[in-house]
């Protein structure tokens, strides 16, 4: 019972703290303080997460590549002090970014060159407003939250375009073109891949979508959408589209360093560069949060008996898990070419998302099937998505396969 009490306290603790502070304020400013605290809390939590994500990325990539990763930075003014496993690296990086010279090319469009990093951070932060972080932690409980998320997220590519164009550098311009082509191609599959969720859950509100996943069979099999055939397919499609939307490897074409130096970031340095970097990780975190919310049960615990852990911890844990998955993918895969990227979107992702939509419709129509029919339902649903996947995949990779080689007769 004590555990339950502590748990229920922890569950609402952030809200309770906020209310305590708000009550202490004079009446007319209360609403302002109320929202400010929410904003500051989101900034603080995700700012910290942002600070340590690149460190985790570098450490994890290092380990994937059989290196150690950064492990040197210790405490300031204490040269031979403890190394702290390099955990102070983000602060060292921040100091470095802030003290670096900010170079603006003479031919650049100065205003846009300045606006682009500001805009991209602003837009990528906007998306956090509607994510349900916990059972009681929803910053803005919008009715059309999902739509809002995509609306706010769609503007980041605009900022990338501005950066690429304003730099007046050929590589940046090519990167801007690529960014546009990429967003035009992948906005569609990204949105289409989550439409089945809306269809099944019957709502655009993210909190309601999470609540719709809050059941367990036998107390340990969660009813997350990812554990259905259409949900799993949708999750994979979402994952690929999210990688493309957030310009992550293998879709990091706008900043393809092997041909375009750093793409739209070529002419950025110092703090402006850090802002782009920040926005990239904010965007990634927000998309991970959306993926977790839509497919992985949001803040729901995986097993019924694990519910004593506060819901916001589950959410953060899942988001971090998604981020690690993204890093792992980045550490392994190579980059697509721009025409292959758009081909993948239009010839593979879009048809599959549409088929998956039909699949979800089938799933919704057969909700009443029970007993052995349940097996039939699973089988049909699997077939609906796997067969087109195989066929389309075969078409996509037609003529490309590992080869066998002959040897010279000597």
């Amino acid at each position: 019972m004590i555990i339950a009490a502590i748990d229920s306290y922890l569950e609402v603790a952030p809200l309770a703290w906020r209310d305590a502070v708000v009550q202490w304020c004079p009446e007319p400013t209360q609403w302002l303080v109320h929202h400010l605290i929410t904003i500051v809390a989101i900034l603080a939590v995700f700012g910290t997460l942002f600070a340590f994500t690149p460190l985790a990325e570098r450490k994890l990539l290092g380990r994937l590549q059989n290196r150690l990763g950064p492990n040197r930075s210790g405490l300031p003014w204490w040269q031979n002090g403890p190394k702290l496993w390099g955990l102070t690296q983000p602060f060292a990086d921040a100091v470095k970014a802030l003290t670096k010279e900010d170079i603006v090319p003479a031919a650049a469009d100065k205003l846009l060159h300045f606006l682009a990093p500001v805009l991209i951070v602003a837009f990528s932060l906007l998306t956090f407003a509607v994510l349900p972080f916990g059972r009681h932690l929803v910053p803005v409980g919008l009715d059309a939250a999902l739509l809002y998320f995509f609306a706010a997220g769609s503007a980041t590519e605009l900022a990338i375009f501005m950066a690429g164009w304003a730099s007046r550098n050929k590589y940046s311009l090519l990167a801007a073109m690529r960014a546009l082509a990429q967003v035009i191609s992948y906005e569609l599959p990204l949105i289409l891949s989550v439409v089945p969720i809306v269809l099944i859950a019957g709502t655009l509100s993210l909190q309601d979508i999470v609540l719709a996943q809050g059941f367990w069979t036998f107390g340990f099999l969660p009813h997350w959408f990812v554990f259905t055939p259409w949900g799993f397919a949708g999750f994979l499609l979402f994952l690929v589209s999210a990688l493309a939307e957030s310009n992550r490897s293998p879709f990091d074409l706008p900043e393809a360093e092997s041909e375009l130096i750093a793409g739209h970031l070529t002419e950025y340095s110092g703090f402006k560069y850090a802002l782009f970097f920040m926005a990239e990780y904010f965007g990634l975190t927000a998309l991970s949060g959306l993926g977790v919310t839509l497919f992985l049960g949001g803040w729901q615990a995986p097993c019924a008996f694990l519910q004593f852990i506060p819901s916001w911890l589950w959410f953060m844990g899942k988001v971090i898990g998604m981020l690690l998955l993204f890093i792992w993918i980045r550490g392994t895969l190579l980059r697509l070419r721009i025409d292959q990227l758009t081909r993948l979107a239009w010839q593979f992702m879009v048809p599959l998302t549409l088929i998956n939509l039909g699949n979800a419709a089938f799933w919704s129509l057969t909700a009443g099937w029970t007993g052995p029919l349940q097996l039939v339902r699973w089988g049909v649903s699997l077939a609906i998505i796997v067969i087109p996947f195989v066929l389309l995949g075969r078409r996509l990779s037609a003529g490309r396969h590992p080869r066998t080689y002959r040897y010279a007769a000597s």
Partner: protein
Amino acid sequence: MTFALIIISALILGCAAVAMALRNLIHSALLLIGSWAGVAAFYLWAGAEFVAFAQILIYIGAISMVVLFAVLLTRQGDAPEPVEFPSLSRFVTGLIAGGGVAGVLIGAILGMPFDVRTAQSAPALSVKELGAQLMGPHAVSLLVIGLLLTVALLGAVLLASDRRPDQPEDTP
């Protein structure tokens, strides 16, 4: 409330007017995107959340991309050429026509006593109700719009495709 509306209006009109007067196409396009964002803010102000998000998603997410793509694809060299006004007389004609229409409209609006609903709170219309409306009384229009979009997509692809009959299809 009215104060917010005036700020939003100033944003919309300012962006649009400057955009139409600039010679740099990219700046025009970006300012117009700002103007569209202002319109979305107006929808939010008016309480039409769903429309506001749709406006952002479609105008800022999609149409702006198409516009910028068009600007970039039709550029000469690495920067778009400054777009001059065709001629002074045409500009003056445009101004006179626009000013005339504006005068008529403003006069009509200010002169007309509108029967204004007194309720200050925005009417609540949930997404569910909106969906019911769309699929119920407006189902036919929805189908027509879907058809229109499909046809537009196909038409755009055909129009913009570079492929002449004598060119073999390039396989990337």
